[in-house]
């Protein structure tokens, strides 16, 4: 990847995801809960977009809507030019959950080949491909181990390898490093960037951590809760490749401050719909 500009600013990058006027309302008891209200978003080819916000801001909901794991109440979503359902059936994306969600009865290698088995890949090619990915995440020595023999971070790496196994254009990651301690997380961030630059995927990344969002992304989507909506989209112009040193630059600090203030409700720069209320904490999605 060339230094300097983030891939997102490649002109003519086609929109991989297009979210227009999407709302999601849940029936809770006798009332309704608005998980997401009027969301508009465009993610272009090669973007690394982070969704950040407090609990209940709808970031995970938005991810799940994109992934066709749930359906919008109103609005439209296009993924790779298709409906989310079609995109899911065509296996256009790989999903990484908050937990590794590995199958305990399968070895690490077998876990990575799981999607390949289901999608009907050639038997002889499956193991090779899985090995390749394990090498990419640095776990090639563990292919015959079982998940319980690995640490949390290693398990999550297997989960990422699995998501990349069938080479989808799009990677949806829902707080994949949330359960890890900060030190491991920073190492994983570097790993992830390396992978991203090697594979040139489009990534949508949900996180609670401002530092992580700034470090990884080309764009940050700041969301607020009650009702869940997109407040602002912040471009991150830090140069690539980013290293541990990047975290200590003044620009990094500026951007994290910008994001923090956006979360608190202070407006900045290129904005999306302003929210009249300060984001409240809420329990739930």
């Amino acid at each position: 990847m060339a230094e300097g500009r983030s891939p997102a600013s490649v002109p003519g990058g086609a929109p991989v995801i297009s979210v227009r006027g999407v709302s999601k309302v849940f029936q809770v008891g006798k009332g309704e809960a608005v998980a997401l209200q009027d969301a508009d978003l465009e993610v272009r080819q090669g973007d690394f977009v982070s969704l950040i916000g407090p609990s209940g801001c709808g970031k995970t909901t938005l991810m799940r809507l994109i992934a066709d794991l749930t359906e919008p109440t109103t609005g439209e979503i296009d993924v790779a030019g298709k409906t989310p359902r079609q995109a899911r059936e065509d296996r256009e994306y790989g999903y990484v959950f908050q937990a590794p969600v590995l199958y305990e009865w399968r070895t690490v290698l077998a876990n990575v080949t799981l999607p390949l088995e289901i999608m009907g890949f050639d038997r002889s090619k499956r193991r090779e491909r899985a090995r390749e990915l394990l090498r990419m995440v640095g776990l090639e020595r563990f292919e015959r181990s079982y998940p319980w023999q690995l640490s949390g971070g290693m398990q999550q790496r297997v989960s990422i390898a699995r998501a990349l196994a069938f080479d989808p254009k799009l990677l949806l990651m829902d707080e994949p490093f949330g359960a890890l301690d900060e030190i491991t997380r920073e190492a994983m961030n570097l790993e992830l960037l390396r992978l991203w630059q090697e594979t040139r995927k489009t990534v949508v990344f949900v996180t609670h951590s401002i530092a992580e969002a700034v470090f990884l992304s080309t764009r940050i989507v700041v969301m607020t809760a009650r009702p869940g909506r997109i407040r602002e989209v912040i471009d991150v112009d830090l140069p690539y490749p980013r290293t541990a040193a990047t975290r200590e630059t003044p620009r990094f600090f500026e951007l994290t401050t910008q994001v923090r203030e956006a979360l608190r409700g202070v407006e900045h720069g290129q904005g999306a719909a302003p929210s009249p209320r300060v984001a409240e904490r809420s329990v739930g999605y």
Partner: protein
Amino acid sequence: MAAGGALRGVAAGRGAMTAAGRRALALVALTALGVAVAFAAVALQRGRPGAAGPLYWAALLGGLLLAVLAAARLSLQSAEDAADRAGAALVARLQRVLPVATVPFVLLLTWEGLVLGFRVPAGIFPSVASIGQALVRAWPVLVADAYLTFVREVLFGFALGLLLGFVTGTLIAFSTFLRRGFLPLATAFGAVPIVGLAPVLGRALGVDWESKAAVGVIVTFFPVVLNTVQGLTSVEPLKLELLRSYAARPLQGFLALRLPNALPYVFTSLKVAIVLTVVSVIVAEFLIPGPPSGLGQRISLSAHRGQFDVVFAAIFVSSVLSMLLYWTVQLLEHWLLAWHPSSRGG
């Protein structure tokens, strides 16, 4: 006795022995001594006619008491007393082995000692020695009986019950209607005592081995169904979502996720079922009089004839075989479910 000798050999090979280790070994020796004294009392009394004298009782009870106390003292000994690791390891190993091993000796000697001491007639309660003799004497008959009971009736009933239970459980797991309709009934049917079931099956299928195998089928069926349903439906939601993100077909999901997920549950039910099947089949043999073969029939017939030594010999054979079956299932479980926390001792 041989164990004591072996241990002493091990100890001798170790060279310097800590006080704790020596104490443990001494206790082992005392236990062995107690057992030996009691055994000698019994052995000597056997050859002697007439009632047992006070010497006999003293030797018997004294020996047993010594063995029990020594074993108890050993098991209460704290392993941390040992100054060095070798001693601690030895003490720990002895603690694991000795008390458990002492129990059967004490029990059998108590039994034999009481029967011999009170000159209990064989028609009331047999002595351990006579049971051993009966075992040898009736061995061919017992083997034939065991074959009928365990292979024809238990294994066949168990296998068929497992198959039917698994298939039914799978069907129920995928139909909400069947689940709501069948599960309450399954629990209710499980409450039917075998004693009520045996006559029904005896009338329906005749007095031969088929009715008893049918008891096995039914007794296995219900736990397997319940556990299969639970296993197939207790899947972590995220694992299901993963498959959904792969646009997996229902059959793929079943084979890749639900089935392996259900295996631990099924095996739990299998362990319960195998023991239950053995007991139920034998009860059925008692209740459904048929041709005089099969361990249950053997026990019943011998009991009614007052041949209690044969009764106990048959009980012994039956117990050993049940334990073997249980261990086989457990072995199978460890082999197939190596990945499960329970196999790792977790």
